[in-house]
């Protein structure tokens, strides 16, 4: 369904009729069949006399009356001057709406409402009723669009016009010096004259914060306001010279001082010269481009809309055109984001309870709604964070869209939930639907199906926990609408908002898909002229370009085309295309440098010409969308070549490492195998297996001495004891290993002489290879220590228990194979 189709006869013309219509709409909403109906935006504005003139002559006049005339005719809008008997054009005259309609037609463009004379006038500073001219222009565009209905936007073919020929020139870029030069030139002026407002801690804090004491932070914020190539065109200068913005003496002198400071900075920056060997297209800035319509958003039931286009100040304007405007006050730690948006870290954007009430009134009227947002969650570790909320604190709300880790949370208060909107609908944590990247999220609620969440146009498949939606009768009209936090300030959401809209109907999957496809932010078609390189008249490489965020541009949809409809071409090679910026090729983001294709008019079947690549890329932002100059370079285009060969990378000289020991400890499996080999006990011996399995991870895992610990030595001892125990307890095995030693004799006999002891010690020492190695302890030393051990273990003499002989043998064996003699290799 087209977004601008309207059911005109149902439209009321005053507040009373609004209420009546809402009742009707609510009643209809409860029906399961019947024709689709059109909801009615709040149109109440400042008091205006009831209209008593001729009835609208046509449906179009009626539409004009509802969508535009009723809103502009009050005395606090255009009616003060353009009313009856006032200045021409009299589009706000109150005596005859048909006459006003005729006057209005002279200043509007219904096929392109944004290009209307009325809009341009207001945008230029002509009596805007809000504090920001662009906001009035936006609202006026919305009203005219609503009036135009089908005539506006949709289906409009893109009219590509040739841009002015401009050769890529040398360009100055901001030095990457952390603001050192800036600190000596421009920064002192800013901190002296602008710090009352343009610092975060100021009582009347105004973004951007280019007057901070911190030079680096100030430098970062000031770059987009400085034009190094043309200091006089810097926003800092223009703002003073032409817009008379808070001058500190007289504006001309102040502007000159500012220009002088910027010239001092620019004078020390050498321009980047374009490499003369490059095969170059013509150059463009973003604003040289043609606005890409990119399709229409579905906004038929929008009742509040924030697009964050102003880029400065502390107010996010509601540009839905539905009165009263629910403007949000920014507070705390926030930043305006390039390409439209606000980033919140420790801040929020909150409306008044009075203005917020329109959400209550209009949504209760339909019983359903949709929260739509383009957001960039700052991370995926924040929990219980409020993205969009209409609430009174942490325990009372009408609705909230929030974040918990990788999930979106959706609370809605109804007669089947509590006052906090619990049970909450949360997207599956396993699905990780929420990502810390730009996402389009829609939270739908209707009384029958309850809540559902769509991310990037796709239903998340998470079902309404209550099984139904319920009634919104309990909604409270004293709550406040807030972005990025709870109204109580204790549920911070860190992230970026690029757009937020509230609809008082749910969005269908098709409508959600439509809005997702349109995207967010302003897009331009940039036509890079290449006719001087190929024998094709009016030949261009086209890109759709948008500011992606505060730090980059998005380049997509590269096409080759000719604006000369009669032109044909074929067999033109195009290879190695790169995007140039301010005289140089950025290192990162050159997604087309491996491109190799052939241009032929036969392939130029699409509206934009011949597609030459499927992927898009981002290119760093340097000076800002008004100053950054783009161009293209080619390795091959037609007969022009500049094939690049990459230099052989330099290999840095290796660095010597600190000396390390060339010996180490035996690791777990090595110890096990070694002890098995020395004792002759199989590694599969049940008791050995049991012990080894238990202590395996306690034994050394790496050879490094530095990792050796006492607990590992304990484990080694345990394993050694186990092996020696198994050896001595196995009569057959011990007889093989110790053929002479008498295990049945008492300790005084078995250990009574050196020869008797040698019958135990010599086989052990031999098996551990402890013979004639200068790197091992001498056998005599080992034997001396083991004899001492035997002496101590046999002090009981004749009173020792009979099994003492075997026990001492085990101990002696374990002392040797559990020692450094084996452990160290």
């Amino acid at each position: 369904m087209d977004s601008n189709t309207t059911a005109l006869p149902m439209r009321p013309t005053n507040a009373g009729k609004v209420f009546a219509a809402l009742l009707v709409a609510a009643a209809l909403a409860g029906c399961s069949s019947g024709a689709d109906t059109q909801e009615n935006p709040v149109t109440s504005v400042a008091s205006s006399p009831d209209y008593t003139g001729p009835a609208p002559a046509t449906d179009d006049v009626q539409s004009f009356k509802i969508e535009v005339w009723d809103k502009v005719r009050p005395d606090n809008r255009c009616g003060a001057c353009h009313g009856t008997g006032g200045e021409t054009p009299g589009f706000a005259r109150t005596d005859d709406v048909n006459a006003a309609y005729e006057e209005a037609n002279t200043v509007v463009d219904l096929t392109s409402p944004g290009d209307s004379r009325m809009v341009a006038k207001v945008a230029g500073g002509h009596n805007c009723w809000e504090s920001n001219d662009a906001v009035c222009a936006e609202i006026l565009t919305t009203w005219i669009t609503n009036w135009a209905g089908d005539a506006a936007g949709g289906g409009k073919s893109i009219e590509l016009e040739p841009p002015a020929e401009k050769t890529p020139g040398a360009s100055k870029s901001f030095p990457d010096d952390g603001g050192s030069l800036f600190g000596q030139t421009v920064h002192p002026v800013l901190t002296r004259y602008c710090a009352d407002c343009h610092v975060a801690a100021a009582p009347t804090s105004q973004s951007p914060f280019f007057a901070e004491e911190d030079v680096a932070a100030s430098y970062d914020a000031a770059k987009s306001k400085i034009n190094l190539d043309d200091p006089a065109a810097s926003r800092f200068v223009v703002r003073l010279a032409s817009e008379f913005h808070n001058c500190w003496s007289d504006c001309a002198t102040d502007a000159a001082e500012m220009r002088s400071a910027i010239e001092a900075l620019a004078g020390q920056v050498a321009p980047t010269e374009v490499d003369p060997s490059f095969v170059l297209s013509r150059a463009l800035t973003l604003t040289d481009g043609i606005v890409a319509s990119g399709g229409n958003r579905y906004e038929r039931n929008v009742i509040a809309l924030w697009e964050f286009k102003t880029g400065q100040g502390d107010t996010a304007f509601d540009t839905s055109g539905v009165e009263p405007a629910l403007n949000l006050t920014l507070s705390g730690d926030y930043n305006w984001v390039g390409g439209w948006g606000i980033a919140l870290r420790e801040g929020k954007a909150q409306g008044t309870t009075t203005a917020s009430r329109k959400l209550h009134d209009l949504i209760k009227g339909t019983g359903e709604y949709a929260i739509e947002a383009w957001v960039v969650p700052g991370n995926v570790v924040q929990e219980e964070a409020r993205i969009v909320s209409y609430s009174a604190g942490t325990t009372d709300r009408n609705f909230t869209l929030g974040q918990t880790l990788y999930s979106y949370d959706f609370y809605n208060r109804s007669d089947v939930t509590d006052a906090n909107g619990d049970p909450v609908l949360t997207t599956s944590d396993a699905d990780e639907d929420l990502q810390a990247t730009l996402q389009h999220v829609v939270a739908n609620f209707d009384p029958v199906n309850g809540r559902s969440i769509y991310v990037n146009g796709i239903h998340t498949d998470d079902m309404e926990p209550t099984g139904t939606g319920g009634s919104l009768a309990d909604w409270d009209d004293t709550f406040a609408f807030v972005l990025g936090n709870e109204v109580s300030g204790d549920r911070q959401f860190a992230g970026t908002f690029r757009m937020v809209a509230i609809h008082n109907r749910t969005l269908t999957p098709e409508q959600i898909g439509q809005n997702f496809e349109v995207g967010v932010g302003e897009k331009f078609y940039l036509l890079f002229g290449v006719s001087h390189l190929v024998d094709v008249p009016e030949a261009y490489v086209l890109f759709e370009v948008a500011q992606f965020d505060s730090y980059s541009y998005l380049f997509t949809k590269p096409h080759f085309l000719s604006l000369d409809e009669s032109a044909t071409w074929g067999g033109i090679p195009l290879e190695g295309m790169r995007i140039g910026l301010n005289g140089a090729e950025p290192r990162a983001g050159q997604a087309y440098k491996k491109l190799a294709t052939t241009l032929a008019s036969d392939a130029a079947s699409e509206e934009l010409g011949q597609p030459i690549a499927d992927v898009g890329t981002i290119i760093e932002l340097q000076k800002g969308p008004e100053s950054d100059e783009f161009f293209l370079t080619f390795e091959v285009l037609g007969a022009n070549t500049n094939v690049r060969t990459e230099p052989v990378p330099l290999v840095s000289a290796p660095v010597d490492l600190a000396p390390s020991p060339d010996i180490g400890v035996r690791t777990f499996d090595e110890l096990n195998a070694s002890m098995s080999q020395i004792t002759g006990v199989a590694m599969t011996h049940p008791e050995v297996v049991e012990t080894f399995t238990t202590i395996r991870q306690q034994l050394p895992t790496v050879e490094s001495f530095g990792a050796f610990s006492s607990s590992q030595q304990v484990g080694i001892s345990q394993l050694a004891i186990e092996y020696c125990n198994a050896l001595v307890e196995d009569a057959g095995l011990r007889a093989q290993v110790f053929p002479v030693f008498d295990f049945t004799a008492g300790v005084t006999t078995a250990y009574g002489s050196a020869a008797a002891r040698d019958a135990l010690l010599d086989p052990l020492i031999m098996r551990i290879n402890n013979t004639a190695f200068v790197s091992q302890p001498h056998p005599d030393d080992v034997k001396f220590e083991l004899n001492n051990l035997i002496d101590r273990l046999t002090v009981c003499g004749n009173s020792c228990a009979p099994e003492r002989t075997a026990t001492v043998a085990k101990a002696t064996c374990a002392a040797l194979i559990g020692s450094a003699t084996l452990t160290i290799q």
Partner: protein
Amino acid sequence: MSSIVNYAGWQPSGSLLRRALVGIACIALAAIAQSAEAGPREQAKRLHDRLAGVPPAEQVLATMEADILAGNPIAAAETAMDNSAFYNVTLRNFATPWTNRDQTVFAPLNDYTATVIGMIRDDVPFNTVLSADILYVGDNGLGLPPYSMTDNAHYEEMEARHVDLKTGLVRTTQSTVTDLPAAATAGVVTTRAAAEAFFVAGTNRAMFRFTLMNHMCNDLEQVKDGSRAPDRIRQDVSRSPGGDSRVFLNNCIECHAGMDPMAQAYAYYDFDPERGRIEYTPGQVQPKYFNNDANFPFGFRTPDDRWDNYWRQGTNTRLGWDPSLPGSGNGAKSLGEEFGASDAFAECQVKKVFEAVCFRQPSDAADRLALQNIVGAFRASQYRMKTAFAETAVYCMGD
């Protein structure tokens, strides 16, 4: 009865035992300080210790000592590698950390580890370890549970029984014992253990990263190059993480620009944790390649398993890619050949051996020169890993 009871019986003398252990340890350390005076016998013992992990029998030691005295230390090293412990202990612990994400040596024996051990035992050219249609299983005569695509019981039983891997492994092919076609096999990359560890869940980039770490001795940190074309970076990589595209342009791109076009080689592979087996879907890209594809819709959408090595230019030319290969292809096998033919692969195998045998990284000019010489010998021997072990052990056997 376990030793715990017996050990308790020794408790009255426990402190004496500990003192004895410490005393002997001190004697040993004092002797080690004299190792500069080591001779052929010392060298033989160290060769055996380092290669087999266990002390040599006296007879073996004598043989090795004689070889060293005769000026043939490589023969002595080959003798040490005859010990079963070289396979059961040294090689098992050499390869096991490559087979799991935790890089733990305590993982069970599996087909990846067994295949590495078998290839080294049989002197199979090791540069095919990432590409060959090869597999090692337990000998039929051992009565083991048969090899299964869906579990690891075959190898766990071998381990439980302490089957001698020197004699108990038999060479076969993956295409014989699994349902993978020969063209889809890629050495250890397509073993069940590797699939379970690196193809499971995720986006298959893990297989690329761990192959790079384990067989090229470089983690992604070492191969970062943000100047490569980002045209093959998939849609799931956010270009503005947390709303800041500088993170992408300065960090993410540096790995993904080169990694994504190569990890595309695995586009038809997955590991099904429910069935416990590798999945191969020729001609059909696995859904995991489209995870989070709305993160950046203008990113690359994988159409097939075509891979391209963007690191053949730029800073990663230092990895020494083989100029006789095209630097692109389809599937895991040809990517494995690309890796296997590189200088970095050969150097990596020798580096790993060096650390296993010398207990340190190559540290100075002498070590680096030795490394290059050993790499040369390794390649000249048709990538015979035992040559790398022997040459390295001889270099580190002391004077």
